């Protein structure tokens, strides 16, 4: 944010041509208390790029700095070091918000409004003409399955219902970039499934999605690339499939086989020199990866995972 910053901005706008939607450079955040004393170093020198049309996941244990990153990217927090760019504009530039949809960690909506009024209000903030607003409101309410509760004030909503209206609110402007902070928390299994389907569908429509979650199955299901944070540090960054493929583990999903057949398969693996690790219902490998990273990170702070 000095003379250097203008040069930064130029290169960032060049980055726009190469379809980088979000870019963070050396992004860091130190929370301070009222007197300016340092309290938490929530994020340290984060460098990530989110490209157009991908689903990017931020992963990490509680308090690892996921929400902090998202807030920095939206200009809700001011970075203590580094910068963040969205659509090539500085994170604090208001005009970038035209193309962003944001679902906060909890749906921070006005409890005294009902679903229709809520969507109408946020639609107005985008200067959407009245007829379009009405049409989209209707369509989104139906999409998130709140048709029967559309006239009820949000204070009466359950957690999952609030989540759903929060999502609808994030989509009111048909955003190019969707930022979702833990999209599936509070949703029932069907809702969670629908949310994931929606995320994939939006990606297929060419939109970019940045989400954070500790529902590892969710991340594994939908994300193209993930960044794993621990204590404010980037631990791992890469494509989900390659991150998971590094392990020489074969997973067999089968249906309708008897105990004998199962035993036969185990024997076959043993005979051909393999090693049977487990024959339980398979655990999500993302979870294992995650646990490994956290474990290792605690033992060897400061180093990237896998580097020996």
């Amino acid at each position, binding site marked *: 944010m000095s003379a250097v910053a203008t040069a930064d901005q130029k290169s960032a706008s060049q980055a726009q041509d190469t379809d980088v939607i979000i870019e963070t450079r050396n992004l860091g955040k130190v929370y301070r208390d009222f007197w300016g004393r340092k309290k938490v170093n929530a994020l340290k020198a984060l460098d990530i790029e989110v490209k157009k049309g991908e689903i990017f996941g931020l992963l990490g244990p509680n308090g690892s700095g996921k929400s902090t990153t998202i807030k920095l990217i939206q200009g*809700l*927090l001011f970075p203590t070091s580094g910068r963040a760019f969205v659509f090539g504009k500085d994170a604090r530039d208001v005009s970038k918000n035209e193309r962003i949809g944001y679902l906060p960690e909890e749906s*921070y909506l006005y409890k005294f409004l009902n679903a229709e009024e809520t969507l109408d209000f*946020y639609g107005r903030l985008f*200067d959407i003409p009245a007829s379009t607003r009405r049409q989209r409101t209707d369509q989104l309410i139906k999409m998130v399955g709140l048709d029967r509760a559309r006239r009820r004030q949000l204070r009466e909503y359950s957690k999952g219902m609030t989540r759903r209206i929060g999502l609808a*609110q994030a989509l009111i402007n048909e955003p190019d970039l969707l930022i979702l902070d833990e999209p599936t928390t509070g949703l029932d299994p069907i809702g969670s499934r629908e949310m994931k389907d929606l995320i994939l569908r939006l990606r297929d429509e060419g939109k970019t999605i940045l989400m954070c979650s500790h529902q590892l199955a969710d991340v594994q299901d939908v994300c193209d690339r993930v960044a794993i944070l621990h204590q404010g540090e980037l631990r791992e960054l890469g494509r989900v499939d390659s991150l998971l493929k590094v392990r020489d583990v074969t997973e067999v999903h089968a249906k309708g086989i008897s105990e004998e057949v199962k035993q036969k398969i185990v024997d076959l693996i043993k005979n051909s020199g393999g090693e049977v690790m487990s024959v339980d219902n398979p655990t999500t490998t993302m979870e294992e990866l995650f646990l490994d990273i956290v474990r290792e990170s605690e033992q060897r702070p400061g180093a990237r995972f896998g580097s020996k």
Partner: protein
Amino acid sequence: MRIERERMWGFFEWLFQQGGLLSGVLLVVLLSALAFTVCYLVAMARYGPGEGFYVVTRVIYELFARDLPNTSCKRIFAFAKLAFQEAIRRKVLAVMAVFIVALLFAGWFLDPNADYPAKLYISFVLTGTNYMVLLLGLFLSCFSLPADIKNKTVQTIVTKPVRSTEIVLGRVLGFTFVGTVLLVLMGLLSYVFVDRGLRHTHEAEEIAADGMSGTTSFDSHHAHTFNVNPNAVKEAATDEKKGHRHFVEITEVNGQRVYSIGPAEGMLEAKIPVFGSLKFTDREGKEADGLNVGYESNYQKYIEGGTLCSAIWSFNGITESLGDELPIELTLKAFRTYKGDIVTGVQGTIILRSSNGRVESERIPFVIKEFAVDERRVNRKLKGTVDQVPKELDLYKDIAPDGKMEVIVRCSDKGQYFGMSQADLFLRAGQNSFAWNMFKGYLGIWLQMLIIICFGVMFSTFLSGPVAMIATMTCLAIGFFGGIAEEVARGTTPGGGPVESMIRMANQAGAMVDLDLGNDVLEKSIQGVDTGIMGALYLLTMGLPSFNDLNTSEFVAYGVNIFEGLVARHMTMALGYFVLTAIVGYFFLKTREMAA
């Protein structure tokens, strides 16, 4: 009714000659500089001196280059609508209920037997409405934004393409709208209350044998008498009681006279005053300051009876449009050095004189009774002198051919005094509609509310709800007591400032005696400290809106038309504060981390 000199200023006189514009501009510059400095210090502590400066200047740049040009009325309106919905759903209307209950209760306590019931009723409802609406504005504006930040709903807002200007303006607009709706409701309710409290009529009773005079029935704690003019037997008017009279219509039915008495007249009025400038002469008739009889207030000056002491009002714009009977209203105060005759009051005379002093009317006598407004109607045909030669005069052609006239008031009773200020004698240039005056009174309340809301919203951009409320209330209080601080700072109040008053209290010394501590240096330094304290306070009051000045309900209650110049000035002031608080609010909002 007290009308200070400042309130008579015309709008442009205030704006240009009395420094209205200048102090406004100065205020904007000073406050902006203050806000800038505060923000810079905060930013410097956070980012270091160079970076901090950059951060703050960028905010200013963004205001003019990005945020103002991109501010959208639609979004402001969206926020206003939200604020309105919030107020309605949070049951602000409960305030209304409190008001109604208060009104009903007040009906019990207002003294219907008062001398001027209209004044009492109107002051009551206007004062009640005023406090209610200010309180409402205070609560609405101070807690909304901090609540949004606390609930984090603001995070959903600022991640939309919303400018900080819109958040501030939308809030102000929305709360003002809520306040306006309530004010209108209260106004209608008050009107019904006043109307029902004052409306009454009488029956004719005790008609004299010749049918030319009578007494009315005793209703609403009073009765009138009336006399019928033998030349016009169809109509008559009663005497004036409790600030009003009734017209009596006289018809003949079967050879019998029937007297029907109409509704109260003159209770609700809005006199349009023409003020003159006031100067005094001393006992020898030379120009001088008026006398001080030892009252604490300097508002009125006194003239001594039975001497050449006089008070001279000079008027401009005397034309025939004032009517064949020039109405002169007097609210002089009698100060008695001996008891005298309480019932007949203190005598005085009025002389009308041309501006060159050559044409003079004869003496027109009047009597000042305690606590009464006296109205003298002077017929345009009157006796007088031209260069000391007696002559029949015409008021407009002979005394005021150039539109200028002097009114000279003397006290005739030796040893008695008349007290007066500029506003205590005026010519009545007709009547304005009472409803319109009432509306202007409500407009005054509305402007106060607007200013409160502006301050509340401004403080709430960087303080938590309760703290913002205390800050706004402090501004309000300083605004209310501004007059006192000013007088003390100027050293014109007896008794001195806070420290001196404290010492006087401890020594049990009165306010009028000199401060005597036996040590000149000590006395001087105490007074110096006081001047310092009150000077600082005075500066503060200069910067803060004077709610006393904005409150024009007294005009309505006393039936004096609220000067259009005053209304225009108040509107300009409110606009000024609106802009000022919006800028400061924007500044703080813009530099605030919404998620921290």
